[in-house]
């Protein structure tokens, strides 16, 4: 039995129905553990005070914002090459989740940036890249929403996702280049690796695992919804023909 068996909507529905309760449960356990540990049982940072604790939301959501797009890219490719409907619908289902993670990353970043940098927003390369990523998510979702025929929509959004990924990467490098060009060296680096010490490390990893599972759970749920919506549409179309 090959892995593509699960691309059959019926098999996918059966498997995901069994997997969902576990995914939900595990997500809750990990998120509650990680966030509670992170928020209440870690010391304040000597420099940043308690504001540092926002990393338990900020870092995982920023990671998932990018991973969600990568997952959409992979599922779009699978749709283009093998035309498995579940794959196209999973890409559609992942987009709003990814957008939400991107917005969470931006908002938590601003909340942290205000007391730390004295400003809600700076045109730092990372911040700018995330803003551009938001635009890509909006465009992708708008294209899905605008097209009535589901297969046409799947094809066009997949093409957009492929081309968009190339341009998103280009933008990332363009932004790095542009900001260096503006202020040499005076960058407000958000590189967490330097300031995360061991006390913060374990709860952060748990939070990241929790966010990954949260993403999986949401995408499974939303893909199931999309499949059901698709079946409903097919039934209605059939009624019109008959």
């Amino acid at each position, binding site marked *: 039995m090959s892995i593509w068996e699960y691309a059959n909507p019926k098999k996918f529905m059966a498997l995901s129905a069994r997997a969902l309760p576990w995914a939900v449960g595990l997500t809750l356990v990990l998120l509650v553990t990680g966030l509670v540990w992170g928020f209440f049982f870690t010391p304040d940072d000597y420099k940043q005070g308690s504001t540092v604790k926002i990393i338990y939301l900020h870092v995982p959501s920023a990671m998932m914002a990018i991973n969600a797009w990568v997952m959409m890219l992979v599922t779009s490719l699978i749709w283009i090459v093998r035309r498995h409907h579940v794959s196209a619908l999973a890409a559609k289902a992942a987009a709003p989740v990814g957008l939400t993670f991107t917005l969470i990353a931006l908002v938590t970043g601003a909340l942290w940036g205000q007391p730390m940098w004295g400003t809600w927003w700076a045109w730092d390369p990372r911040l700018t890249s995330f803003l551009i990523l938001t635009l890509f998510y909006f465009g992708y979702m708008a294209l899905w929403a605008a097209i009535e025929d589901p297969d046409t929509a799947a094809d066009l959004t997949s093409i957009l996702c492929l081309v968009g990924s190339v341009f998103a990467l*280009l933008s990332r490098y*363009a932004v790095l280049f542009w900001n260096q060009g503006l202020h040499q060296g005076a960058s407000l680096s958000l590189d967490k690796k330097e300031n995360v010490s061991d006390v913060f490390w374990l709860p952060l990893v748990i939070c990241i695992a929790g966010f990954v599972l949260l993403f999986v759970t949401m995408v499974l749920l939303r893909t199931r919804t999309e499949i059901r919506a698709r079946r409903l549409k097919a039934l209605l179309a059939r009624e019109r023909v008959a």
Partner: protein
Amino acid sequence: MKALLLRDLRLAFRSGGGFGLGLAFFFLLSVLVPLGVGPEGGTLSRIAPGILWVGALLACLLSLDRIFALDHEDGSLDLLATAPIPLEAVVAVKALAHWIVTGLPLTLIAPGLAIFLNLPPAGYPWLVLSLLLGTPALSIIGAFGAALTVGLRRGGLLLSLLVLPLYVPTLIFGGEVVRRGAEHMALATPLALLAAISLGAAALLPFAAASAIRVNLR
């Protein structure tokens, strides 16, 4: 293919073809910005490279939906898709026609408008060169966006939403070339990257756009 290019140019220059709309927009923008920002020369010359590039980009955006929508409405696109020239070539030729009608005139009038914006003298050659190298990318990326939205009623706003993020690298490198040129800084890298984007887009995007049109015609 030459026939298609000539037809598109003829259509654009005949009455009602919309030629000059982008130019007028570019002109208005360059006049309005100093009115809004204030007449102080130093401020204007600092923002001039960016304003000129953003203006050229928006002027390009205005006419994108015409690339395929008109041919789709009157049925020509169906006929072109069954014609002996490959759809990829149709896309490339139509993007070229769009550039000749929009990008090239914008490049030519940009130095004139730069006077309003008090661009430092050193920036002029780089302004023209960067637009010459960068506007083809705007046309071809726009043609891709137009191909994605060709079947849609009210596709215009969606087209802008799809195309603007794709314009980011071109805008950044284009603006950077002019800014560095105006400040006598080294600019070989952004210039090369700008040319690379245009060439890469011209080489690859016609295929993506043609497949999008095929999907839309189904």
